[in-house]
């Protein structure tokens, strides 16, 4: 049957149904089903979030100063970004301002996790959609060395011997017959287009990136004590600064700052010498594979982040842009107000929750919860053994958030499209430079590859910003300002009886918001609307499809039984299911009313 969605897509579920479950190389659990016509083209797509943890229910009644630790555990991949969003929400509610140093350190940490996440995503979660490590065995190490020196002349690891060593190791691994993580990969699928030398180069960088990422996170370890899941603080940051006097060894001192500085330099180097050149080189071989645009050319949303000055989230003060684009009109970027009950609303008509009436949308401050796991009449299989899902009914643990009724894409590409449309200088220069290098038009951005490229550009930009805030921190210390926390309102006795606040960040995967209501010193209601909730959203009551589903449509599959193309496009969003599958609590209801059937 063919249907037209209000947001401009044609769905046809008559062809062969292909099921991918589990979708691997993502955070959390996800299922994807598509219909494919006789030519192997995807005509319908259904994405299902297959987990629910109920964190917001758990947060009710707790100390708002503790909330960052709970919400940080929503996700250990973008570790820290939920915690930052949480302390911002609580500070917003209670009117707490933070010192400039705390803003600088938080920004450095947020940028650091952005870079870490982007690198790990590209090399360890996404690369195998483009790169064939088995094919790398056929590469000539000398030619690989030449390729490396051509695409990145200043990368020191480029000798033929270096590539031969890696290749030998890979050979030994493959010949052992124990393929481990590469087992059952789709290595003879014609969707893989790289020559063996590019495969060897990229596989080598898979290993280099694995070594590098453990260095990158040490910035979190210094300021937050550990990674994953560093520590944060309402009112500032927990690490004190002491570079001059007695006891400096117990605080952020010169040695610690030097380590941060050297890691920041390494991030910049890796982005410049490895990550960006790889994306250009790999992208060059796939530049005719421009599927996967989905919502990106029509509806993009970003909250903005990385405030230059503390406590000022006005759009012109943010290094990562804020704005919304709808109906494909890049000439008009709307401002976004996360407090406005008319702008952001969540719907549950196709999600396993119940709002009591169909078609109802709720702003996060006024959320409701009742999980309701029920499957539609056209389900194939049983309640605990789903073979084919019925997307006409409820079909996901992910809710459907909408901005003024529109399904939106969020994430690096959305940020870059919003930034480009707003004339953000750094972003515009980067994008124009890349398109020129690759000889591609602007609309090539609206694709799976565009999403992947935007992430790499952003990693590079974040590297420079990290340095900017490090310099700012040093300047402050030079000027005698070592303050890292504001404790005026640490004591709950200083808080108003009731308060509500919102915190926003740009997580690696996109716009992230936490909404909190505080009453009598305790959390009354807590709600997160998370990037993958936007991107992975199921249909809404109007029939609008979300970003994942839209991006899969019209893609040609080389072999429908091998989901290389589906993985490629889904991974380009860097899905995080533990983040996306959450729940709102009914205002004022006791915890025990959460009905779990």
């Amino acid at each position: 049957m063919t249907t037209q969605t209000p947001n401009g897509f044609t769905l046809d579920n008559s062809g062969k149904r292909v099921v991918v479950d589990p979708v691997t190389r993502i955070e959390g659990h996800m299922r994807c089903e598509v219909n494919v016509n006789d030519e192997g083209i995807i005509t319908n797509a259904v994405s299902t979030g297959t987990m629910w943890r109920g964190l917001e229910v758990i947060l009710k009644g707790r100390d708002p100063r503790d909330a960052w630790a709970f919400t940080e555990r929503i996700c250990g991949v973008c570790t820290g970004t939920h915690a930052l969003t949480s302390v911002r929400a609580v500070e917003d509610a209670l009117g707490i301002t933070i010192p400039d140093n705390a803003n600088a350190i938080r920004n450095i940490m947020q940028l650091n996790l952005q870079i870490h996440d982007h690198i790990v995503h590209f090399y360890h979660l996404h690369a195998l959609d483009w790169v064939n490590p088995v094919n790398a065995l056929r590469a000539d190490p000398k030619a690989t060395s030449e390729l490396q020196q051509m695409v990145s002349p200043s990368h020191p690891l480029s000798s033929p011997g270096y590539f031969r060593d890696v290749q030998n190791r890979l050979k030994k691994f493959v010949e052992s017959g124990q393929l481990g993580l590469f087992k059952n990969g789709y290595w003879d699928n014609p969707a893989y287009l790289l020559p063996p030398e590019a495969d060897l180069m990229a596989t080598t960088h898979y290993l280099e990136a694995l070594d590098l990422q453990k260095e990158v996170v040490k910035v979190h370890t210094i300021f937050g004590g550990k990674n994953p899941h560093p520590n944060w603080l309402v009112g500032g940051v927990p690490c004190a600064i002491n570079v001059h006097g007695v006891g400096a060894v117990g605080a952020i001192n010169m040695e610690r700052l030097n380590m941060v500085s050297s890691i920041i330099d390494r991030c910049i180097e890796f982005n410049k010498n490895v990550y960006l050149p790889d994306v250009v080189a790999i992208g060059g071989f796939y530049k005719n594979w421009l599927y996967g645009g989905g919502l990106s050319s029509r509806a993009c949303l970003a909250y903005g982040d990385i405030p230059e000055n503390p406590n000022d989230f006005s759009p012109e003060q943010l290094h990562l842009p804020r704005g919304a684009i709808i109906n494909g009109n890049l000439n008009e970027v709307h401002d976004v107000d996360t407090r406005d009950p008319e702008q952001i609303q969540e719907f549950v008509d196709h999600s396993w929750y119940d709002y009591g009436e169909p078609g109802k949308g709720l702003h996060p401050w006024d959320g409701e919860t009742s999980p309701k796991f029920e499957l539609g009449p056209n389900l194939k299989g049983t309640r605990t053994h789903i073979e084919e899902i019925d997307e006409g009914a409820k079909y996901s643990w992910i809710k459907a958030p909408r901005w003024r009724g529109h399904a939106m894409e969020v994430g690096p590409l959305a940020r870059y499209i919003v930034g480009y449309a707003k004339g953000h200088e750094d972003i515009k220069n980067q994008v124009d430079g890349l398109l020129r290098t690759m000889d591609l038009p602007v609309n090539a951005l609206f694709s799976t590859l565009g999403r992947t490229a935007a992430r790499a550009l952003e990693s590079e930009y974040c590297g420079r910003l990290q340095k900017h805030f490090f310099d700012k921190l040093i300047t402050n210390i030079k000027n005698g300002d070592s303050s890292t926390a504001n404790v005026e309102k640490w004591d709950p006795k200083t808080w108003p009886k009731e308060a509500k606040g919102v915190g926003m960040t740009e997580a690696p995967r996109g716009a992230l918001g936490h909404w909190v209501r505080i009453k009598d010193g305790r959390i009354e209601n807590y709600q997160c609307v998370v990037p993958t909730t936007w991107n992975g959203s199921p249909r809404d009551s109007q029939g609008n499809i979300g970003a994942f589903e839209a991006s899969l449509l019209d893609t040609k599959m080389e072999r429908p039984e091998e989901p290389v193309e589906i993985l490629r496009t889904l991974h380009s969003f860097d899905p995080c299911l533990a983040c996306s599958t959450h729940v709102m609590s009914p205002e004022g209801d006791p915890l025990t009313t959460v009905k779990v059937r």
Partner: protein
Amino acid sequence: MSQIETFYDVMRRQGITRRSFMKYCSLTAAALGLGPSFVPKIAHAMETKPRTPVIWVHGLECTCCSESFIRSAHPLAKDVVLSMISLDYDDTLMAAAGHAAEAAFEDTIAKYKGNYILAVEGNPPLNEDGMFCITGGKPFVEKLRHAAKDAKAIISWGACASYGCVQAAAPNPTQATPVHKVITDKPIIKVPGCPPIAEVMTGVITYMLTFDRMPELDRQGRPAMFYSQRIHDKCYRRPHFDAGQFVEQWDDDAARKGYCLYKMGCKGPTTYNACSTVRWNEGVSFPIQSGHGCIGCSEDGFWDQNGFYERVTGIKQFGIEATADQIGFATTAVVGGAVAVHAAASALKRAQKKNEEA
């Protein structure tokens, strides 16, 4: 078989000589209580043994354990995955998806019946017929039971698998349940923490590969080698605790001097973990060193104890019947006296132990 990279190959590749390798085998034999005649047997096993298959499954979790694992510096995560184990199934990192992934899962179970290690990250929710966590269209708990049936041993990674962690915090809406409450007929090693320290994770795995046995576990099922001491006992800020020097407020003068965080709610006195010794991310720091108290993330039910900034009360120290609070407010002279008594008592214990060993 000769093409399989064995444990011996790995050691050789890492620059370990044949001589050192044989010495290592003797030590291993001694550690296992075996005579010298077993040394060649151990050497032979290490020279020929294929990499141990590992199935790594994910329930309700946040993937922080996997993220921590890849941070390991010694051994490097890439060496573990390429040369020490055969990670035959791990939905977070594997190339295949859907049916091909499920086939890899089934193949490994069938081919290595009774010989693979099952690593569990996260836990199964039992409410809603288990459908709060669905994989392959079925409840995760089914997959867990299936994989556990023929496993040699199970590693429960992190607080989720070991104790339930954040999704099991009150009111535990999904009835998230730790692994040992679902699987009761297999040896289970709990490696708690949110997440566990990277080198503790790879340390547990390499211990099992090297000595071919389970690590010694404490009463709670945790490896004694990493979890038998309180963070407080090995904390480098402990002398400030003993001297009654405390941070009273964030970013105060005491915070800048690195004094004890006990009054800021530090859970070091009630938390058993290796953070203050192994430390994090190649020993760079740990929470207390970076100015925030320990939140006790490796303890059972730490989410539902007091708030993270509420002071732990009633802890004993020095073997003297005084609480930390009393000591904190005590005069320096008294504390000094207590330290002296403590030191003398420790020396005495050491002497006694030496006598027993001799």
